[in-house]
């Protein structure tokens, strides 16, 4: 009896240690960035485990820097526009792929899946030429255009998965009433697709917000940068000493909205990620 109890206690403690370990592993780096962002001057170089005094000077200097605020604005613009474009093309394509049986359907799905596997660097020089030809170089439009390469395939893929799960009786009723496919899509499916659209939109938004390689290559001046590039290129007085306080403050500013989105919509995000991968 005693041994059984002991074993139970050991198992419970082990589980608790495991949980604390997981939490520390996932949360600590972000927590430490927040701690650092509230320090300034020489405090920065004393390692401390918690916030001892709150000093907003890093935040003020980051926000006071016009080009960083401009970068946030560029990121917001690029991410929203990318989501809208992916939705418009993704929903119509998903309707065709998810609800209509036609020849060449699995070939189209293969193409979509294939494009989502493209290494970004493989299209870099070709896209650069296209962007130059369209005169989009060094403008957020270049990013909106190029981000479609990764947002559109998974939008199509996930929306198709969701679209397939809707009962076919709905559509049959619409067909009997003589509704055109366009009307069916807009009046029958889109109202039912809101949860799926929210999920996909969130994933596309996060992907666009975080993208780095295209943003680094297709923009040149500070005022056209998006947030990840602005953070990567943030430099201090000398080439060798990075302004770590400002960097951490900027990191916290651009990450907090994402973390909030994830905490609020965690169920949706999980369902989107699993629909995109497991069922693929």
């Amino acid at each position: 009896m005693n041994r059984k109890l002991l074993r139970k206690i050991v198992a419970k403690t082990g589980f608790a240690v495991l949980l604390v370990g997981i939490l520390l592993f996932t949360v600590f780096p972000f927590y430490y960035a927040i701690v650092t962002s509230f320090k300034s001057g020489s405090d920065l170089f004393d390692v401390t485990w918690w916030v001892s005094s709150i000093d907003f000077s890093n935040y003020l200097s980051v926000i006071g820097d016009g080009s960083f605020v401009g970068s946030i604005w560029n990121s917001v613009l690029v991410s929203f526009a990318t989501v809208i474009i992916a939705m418009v093309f993704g929903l119509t394509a998903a309707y065709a792929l998810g609800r209509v049986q036609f020849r060449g359907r699995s070939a189209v799905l293969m193409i979509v899946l294939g494009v989502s596997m493209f290494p970004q660097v493989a299209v870099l020089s070709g896209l650069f030429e296209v962007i130059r030809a369209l005169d989009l170089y060094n403008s957020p439009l270049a990013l909106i255009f190029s981000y479609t390469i990764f947002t559109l395939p998974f939008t199509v893929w996930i929306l198709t998965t969701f679209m397939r799960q809707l009962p076919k009786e709905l559509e049959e009723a619409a067909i009997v009433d003589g509704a055109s496919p366009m009307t069916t899509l807009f009046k029958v499916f889109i109202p039912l697709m809101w949860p799926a659209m929210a999920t996909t939109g969130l994933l596309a938004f996060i992907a666009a917000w975080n993208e780095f390689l295209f943003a680094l290559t297709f923009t040149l001046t500070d005022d056209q940068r998006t947030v990840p590039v602005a953070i990567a290129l943030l430099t201090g007085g000398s080439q060798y000493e990075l302004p770590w306080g400002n960097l951490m403050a900027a990191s916290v500013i651009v990450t907090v909205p994402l973390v909030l989105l994830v905490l609020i919509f965690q169920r949706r995000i999980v369902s989107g990620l699993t629909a995109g991968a497991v069922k693929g």
Partner: protein
Amino acid sequence: MAYTAPAPVDTVAGGKSPARAFPVKRQASRVRRQRLRAAWLFLIPMLLVLAAVAGWPLMRTIWFSFTDASFSNISEYGLVGFENYLVYDNGAWYGVLADPTWWSAVWNTLFFTVVSVGIETVLGLIIALTLNAQFTGRGWVRAATLIPWAVPTIVSAKMWGWMLHDQFGIINEMLLGLGLIAEPLNWTANADLSMWAVIMVDVWKTTPFMALLTLAALQMLPSDCYEAAKVDGIHPVRVFFKVTLPLILPALMVAIIFRVLDALRVFDVIYVLTSNSEDTMSMSVYARQQLVEFQDVGYGSAASTVLFLIIALLTISYLYLGRKQIGGEA
């Protein structure tokens, strides 16, 4: 099976009298034709967009790899054949395939992919098994594990860059405090450590993805075989290896393949954490350096094309193997 020929139309008509059934049938096929036309009308814009952002640029990249185009003036170039790939000139080999830096980038990428995906799979599995248990606050822990996934890669590289700082980093402080190291380590600049620093950041950032996919697979498992195992008094570790692992293996494999394809094109983490250092340079970093920093579009495109071929080969074999699954769902 998403669409069936509009059977209800037939049932409504009753189909008893042949005279009435005929126009109904014609109407049914008209509806079907209309739907087919609409399907293609809906698909074409998407396909055109994909052609514009992916198909055409890819073809141009492959084309550029046979030219001497430069980044500053991309419209004027001459054809050079396979010179960017491999050429024998004056007693020595030149080109991407003869460049030791390229081969070290290939090695770095493979090492990075195998080690980081391996660690992520094991850690993801552990986290998923933990989250699969019933306990209070489970939703919160699951939400917390999602945080690294949401943090932009650039930000996570910078955050870790600060934690791994050689003089003021908390990781050195921790290890010194525990007595594991005698003096601070220069994680991001030391040739032996920098790849491990990169792997550390990547593991932190992408383990949640693996954990969530594994958790989703775990939650779809039937509970009856566990009850049977429990009744038979089989040790949990044995149950895991004999029952759980084989059952979740298909889903786990899909997640691993996704991660492998993703890891092979790694760029952000390495570029931000260790810049263009040769010790950690991946294939993507190498290609971009040639393209943008050295302005050599021809040579950089050749490197990109080789990377594309490697990933395409893997993707095709994956699609070939998974074809049955996708086709079956259709």
